[in-house]
């Protein structure tokens, strides 16, 4: 047997190199704080120096926060919620394998290739629109920043409540470690939330997917308090409409998001403002067109619309007004800042169309996942992680961002090159 030995000079450099590497490793082991020891790539990029625990670093880039929240100050008020949000958005800056993310997105899940022991799942009742698809990608990108996550799973029940319960139970049976969800069927999902919690699985919801008993029946709900969103909508309507008819549009009948803002907007409206219709659209553009056309036929003098889905409004309502042969003179208060809405408004170039929007909040799903991961590591997670609400005026902050697909949200943290691959053309 021959031992492979190099020339003496090369061996000297090899030994020296090994010594330096060993010293560096020892220094890293002694100098890093607890958080750094457990942190994934998000905490080890060397760009962050903030405090952290539970494998996270509580610091995020200010420009990134401004992109996704409009203002770096619009973080949750209480300390732990703020830290979780900072940890989540800090990770959003990490480099991840975009090709893997795209494959994972297209295949509804994947092995991450890290051999990590954890499996995380995004389990939702409905995933067949652009908003949910982008949320899915945000979830995947965030999951890929954790080397301890070895598998990502995704299921959509395609609007079938019974299937949603079955999917959730399948995730519990499989021993998924963290479940993130949007509870499309509201409190109807409570039995499975409780079952997961009893099985020790953190369950978190985003986009203020409020189900009764956060902190007890499930880990936490992330998002803007939709009641505050409703009040912000009412303030705009009071100021811009003053008096006259407005309508509320919503998603699926009984979904917590629509009910949340609607129940708080109405009491805050001036006495001179009448809510003449409250209609469900299933967050479907063609249904929006149908519903808006119907309301326009009954109330041609309608002055305002409150709704969640900006792109749905852009595609459906613009077509309905056009078909009715009416100029789109209205005040819109929207929850989402879809690029397509901003571009449609710009194209119409109508000074009587005023649009106020909030963030679609796709990136809130990152906070929901990070909260679940921190819970696994023993963190006390607040039952509600609440972001403050500040509506943006389209005339002042244009949501029609160049280079973005029309379907995307301007505040999404999915890189633009990845969005272009998700929605080519």
């Amino acid at each position: 047997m021959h031992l492979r030995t190099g020339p003496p000079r090369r061996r000297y450099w090899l030994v020296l190199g090994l010594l330096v590497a060993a010293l560096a490793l020892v220094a890293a082991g002694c100098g890093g704080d607890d958080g750094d020891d457990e942190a994934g790539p998000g905490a080890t990029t060397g760009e962050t120096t903030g405090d952290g625990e539970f494998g996270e670093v509580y610091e995020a880039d200010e420009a990134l926060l401004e992109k996704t929240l409009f203002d770096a100050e619009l973080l949750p008020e209480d300390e732990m919620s703020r830290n979780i949000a900072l940890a989540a958005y800090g990770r959003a800056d990490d480099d991840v394998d975009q090709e893997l993310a795209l494959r994972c997105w297209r295949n509804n899940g994947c092995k991450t290739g890290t051999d990590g022991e954890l499996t995380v799942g995004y389990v939702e009742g409905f995933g067949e629109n652009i908003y949910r698809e982008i949320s899915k990608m945000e979830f995947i990108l965030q999951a890929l920043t954790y080397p301890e996550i070895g598998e990502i799973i995704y299921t959509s029940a395609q609007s079938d409540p019974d299937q949603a319960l079955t999917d959730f139970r399948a995730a519990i049976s499989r021993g998924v470690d963290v479940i993130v969800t949007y509870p499309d069927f509201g409190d109807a999902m409570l039995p499975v939330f409780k079952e997961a919690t009893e099985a020790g699985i953190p369950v978190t919801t985003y986009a203020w997917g409020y189900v009764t008993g956060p902190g007890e029946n499930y880990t936490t709900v992330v998002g803007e308090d939709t009641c505050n969103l409703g009040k912000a909508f009412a303030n705009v309507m009071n100021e811009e409409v003053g008096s006259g008819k407005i309508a509320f549009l919503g998603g699926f009948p009984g979904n917590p998001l629509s009910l949340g803002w609607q129940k708080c907007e109405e009491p805050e409206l001036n006495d001179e403002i009448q809510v003449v219709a409250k209609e469900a659209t299933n967050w479907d553009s063609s249904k929006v067109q149908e519903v808006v056309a119907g309301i326009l036929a009954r109330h041609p003098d309608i002055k305002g619309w409150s709704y969640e889905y900006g792109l749905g409004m852009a595609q459906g309502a613009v077509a309905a007004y056009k078909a009715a042969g009416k100029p789109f003179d209205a005040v819109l208060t929207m929850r989402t800042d879809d690029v397509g809405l901003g571009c449609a408004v710009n194209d119409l170039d109508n000074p009587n169309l005023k649009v106020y929007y909030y963030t679609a909040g796709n990136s809130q799903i990152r906070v929901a996942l990070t909260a679940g991961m921190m819970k696994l590591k023993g963190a006390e997670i607040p039952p509600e992680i609440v972001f403050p609400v500040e509506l943006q005026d389209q005339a002042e902050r244009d949501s029609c961002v160049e280079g973005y697909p029309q379907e995307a949200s301007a505040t999404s943290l999915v890189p633009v090159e990845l969005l272009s691959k998700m929605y080519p053309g």
Partner: protein
Amino acid sequence: MSLRFRGWMPLALLSVLIVAIAVYAGAREPAFYSDYNLRNLLLTTMPLALVALGQTNALLVGGFDVSVAALVTMCIVVASFTMPAGAAWWVLIPGALALVGVGLATGVFNATLIRVLGLPSIIATLGTLSILQGGALLLRDHPEGPISGEAIDVLTWSVGFLPLAFVGVVLLAVAADLWLYRSRRGLAVRAVGLDETSARRLGMSTGRVVFGAFVVCSLMAALGGFYAAAQVQIGSPIVGGYALESIAAAVLGGASLAGGRGSFVGALLAAVFLSLIKNVLPLFQQPTEYAQITIGALILLALLLYQGPELARRFRSSWQGVGRLRTRGATPAG
């Protein structure tokens, strides 16, 4: 193909498919055999199985009942009022009877529309479906009103992974098949479904048979409502929707769309099979589209397999008709 063989074929086919899928799923994903999963599989089968047993009644007399979808939803919503969380047993018993009453009233209403007003069953029950859907949304515009935990515990009481109620449904299906094939009343139901005019000429009270079939169908859907309520545990106006699935289960179980033939045990097996597909797909990370495709394809396959001779006869008869027309058309010119 003998009638006896055709009667047994659905049961044999479904049993083989269930065992094959269960063995495959268990081998690939050990979580499939966990008590938690098997219990949930059987409990989620319960509403569909009960509705499918009822639907088999409607199919046997040559009709359809699509209102069962909304009836289940209505029962869930009603249960959230009449069987609320924390209620004492003396409230729960009349509360449960209220659900049965909703089923009975719906059945009588449907049967009246079909037998007294002479509406086609699909149109009549479609109207009822719409009324019940609207009513459920009027009573609860979003999921609220927790349903009694004690009542849910009783409904879902299990030994190991086996819910006792499921054993009850198995016994009910077997008894119903014995009634259908071994009793005079069962014979009358099949006779009315096969040829109502002949059955009437033979002195059978065909109106009463059809009326009864639709009332039983709604009653079974109301019973299914109890188990759907136990699943969702809250007054949800959007949970339910077993119309197409129950028809699929009845057809896969051997029911003829033309009436006169069917099997309650077959419908139960098909309900287990359909629930099994829905259970297994998410375990294997497969999208639910596959379930819809599989169910649709299997219904067509079942129709071909079980009703092949009838279809062939109809095809031959149509083809002969076309041939006669062609011959007649050719004569003057020729």
